[in-house]
């Protein structure tokens, strides 16, 4: 997990990662953490990465020998030297003289799973996960929390079973300044709440600013996942991708919406694509969760009725209480079952954010394209969250900060005009800029004529594995 915050520098962007786990897993090999740092602005970024132990003590600082070019990006792979017995769990903060954005990827040598999550620019005293699972449906979630301040904080994780308004369990925690903790939902006290078979949501409160992320390492043959926490106070959430089997992968989307307020609230979910908008409503009690329908690819969606093989975006609005939300895309087959041939179930999860995370300038630090079957391809969806149609321009930058040269009829930037309110510009991928490439890594900077929200899907070419992450707002 990462976050961004200003810390005593005139212009500083900090990226926190919770947790970085480098212990060896006997089955799958050593853990790796990959930190992708992008410098989206027009000035180079002199940055460093400071690693913190769980107790908040500083473990060390990695300082590159040269600055990151303007519009440039880099990937920093970190892995334990000792394959067995070595174990460092902690967090990290990336500091820079100019604004940076970052994405983290955690993975094990001998696994195809990838946990990807975005950085934050600051923390809060409350954080929410609309989905939290404890050893159920092949998933087990670990909640990582980081204190982003130099002072100690105390707090609680409240676990709400689906539909319940009172916590099923409460897990208290104390963190030193810059300390972090990883709480396994299924672990027994004192390490966790011991919620095996749990399906619900969580609310975290703290006495100081924290950030949090869920990561779900491979368990029971399921795909690994990671997603960011929801910020407090949102009465509107944006989901830039809402898919009902539009592509060959038969991608379907599930949405979890949590009422994190104190009383009932009326929810309005509006799906939008090029053909129009489709609305459904419900009433959600405090603490309860709305599992907005699975968009199985073999069915005409009802309530609302969506066009076949729908490909659009979703906006959920609450009329009174704050809400939190998580999107989960999966690959399904024509019968509505998991569509992956292997035991791996492709899952792409990201947390929906609200207007505070929207911006006219967004950066996607980790953009990859490879024709290798074990490589990645990145697809970007940009949702218009403004009040009138907007134009969207996506600039593809090589890692050295230069613009990717277009080829094959592509353009750089890719331009989408008159994107409807609530709708999306998609797909944005490097092959539309240059289809002669066999491999590319870089970042994408997206400019809109209005406010946007960005979701990113990273999918392997020929494996049932994928991961989603959010775009990140920045100030050009």
């Amino acid at each position: 997990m990462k976050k961004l915050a200003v810390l005593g520098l005139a212009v500083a962007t900090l990226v926190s990662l919770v947790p970085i786990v480098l212990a060896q897993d006997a089955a799958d090999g050593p853990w790796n953490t990959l930190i992708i740092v992008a410098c989206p602005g027009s000035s180079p970024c002199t940055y460093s990465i400071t690693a913190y132990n769980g107790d908040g003590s500083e473990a060390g600082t990695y300082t590159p020998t040269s600055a990151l070019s303007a519009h440039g990006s880099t990937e920093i792979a970190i892995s334990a030297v000792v394959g067995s017995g070595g174990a460092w769990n902690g967090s990290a903060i990336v500091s820079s003289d100019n604004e940076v954005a970052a994405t983290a990827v955690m993975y094990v040598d001998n696994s195809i799973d990838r946990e990807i999550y975005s950085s934050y620019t600051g923390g809060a005293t409350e954080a929410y996960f609309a989905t939290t699972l404890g050893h159920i449906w092949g998933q087990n979630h670990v909640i990582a929390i980081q204190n982003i301040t130099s002072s100690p904080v105390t707090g609680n994780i409240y676990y709400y079973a689906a539909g319940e308004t009172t916590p099923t369990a409460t897990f208290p925690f104390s963190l030193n300044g810059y300390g972090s903790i990883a709480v396994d939902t299924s672990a027994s006290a004192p390490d966790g709440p011991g919620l095996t078979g749990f399906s619900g949501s969580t609310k975290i409160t703290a006495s100081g600013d924290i950030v949090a992320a869920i990561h779900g390492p491979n368990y029971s043959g399921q795909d690994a996942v990671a997603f960011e926490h929801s910020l407090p106070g949102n009465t509107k959430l944006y989901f830039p991708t809402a898919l009902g089997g539009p592509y060959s992968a038969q991608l379907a989307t599930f949405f979890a919406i949590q009422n994190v307020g104190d009383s009932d609230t009326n929810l309005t979910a509006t799906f939008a694509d090029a053909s129009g908008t489709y609305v459904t409503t419900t009433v959600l009690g405090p603490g309860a969760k709305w599992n907005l329908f699975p968009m199985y690819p073999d069915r005409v969606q009802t309530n609302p009725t969506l066009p076949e093989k729908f490909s659009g975006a979703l906006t959920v609005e609450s009329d009174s209480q704050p809400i939190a939300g998580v999107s989960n895309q999966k690959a399904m087959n024509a019968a509505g079952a998991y569509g992956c041939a292997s035991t791996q179930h492709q899952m792409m999860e990201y947390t929906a954010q609200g207007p505070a995370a929207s911006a006219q300038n967004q950066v996607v630090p980790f953009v990859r394209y490879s024709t290798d079957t074990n490589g990645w391809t990145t697809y970007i969806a940009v949702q218009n969250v403004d009040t009138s149609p907007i134009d969207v321009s996506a600039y593809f930058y090589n890692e050295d900060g230069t613009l990717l040269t277009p080829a094959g009829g592509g353009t750089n930037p890719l331009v989408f005009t008159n994107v409807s309110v609530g709708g999306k510009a998609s797909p944005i991928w490097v092959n539309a800029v240059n289809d002669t490439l066999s491999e590319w890594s870089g970042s994408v900077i997206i400019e809109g004529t209005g406010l946007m929200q960005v979701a990113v899907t990273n999918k392997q070419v020929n494996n049932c594995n994928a991961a989603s992450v959010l775009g990140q707002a920045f100030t050009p």
Partner: protein
Amino acid sequence: MKYRAWKPFLTAGAVAVLLLVSACRSATPVVSPALATSPLSPVATVSPTEVLPSPTHPIIPTPSPGLGVIYGRLVDEAGNPVPDCPMFLGIIWTLQTEAGPEDVLVADVAQAPSTRTNEQGYFVFADVEPNTYGIHYGRPADIGAAFARDEDTQNALLFDLAPDSVLDVGEIVRRLPPNAGP
């Protein structure tokens, strides 16, 4: 990850001999820090074409003064070369953990020495600063990309590169996850 090394530090003459018999593969893993104490001899200037007549072998450049060269071969588990694969050198970052010092490897693609394997899987890092390195094969986060490790201990393989030396890291086996693509 299997590792088959011939010999860590070579004089130019030894380079010639060993490359001509490059099919020879030792089953004995060689892992630093034992290499740290290996005596080094400056590498004389030898034309690469004299010692590497076969087009299937890499051209091993003579290092510039004070620098070194690292080369080796990346193969799959069947022994077939892995061509056109990005390769990076990682450096050691020592973390002061709650349990004491612990080394991690860091490969920063914007900073690290990098190269690609040729059609026969050979890779050469030319004119590299003397240091202790780990070798990362593949683009980070791609499936099967990882730091080279000893197959048995899972410890990362570390190589000490001395000034004016040519370091042959031998054959490194890329191991894909069991459910990776073809």
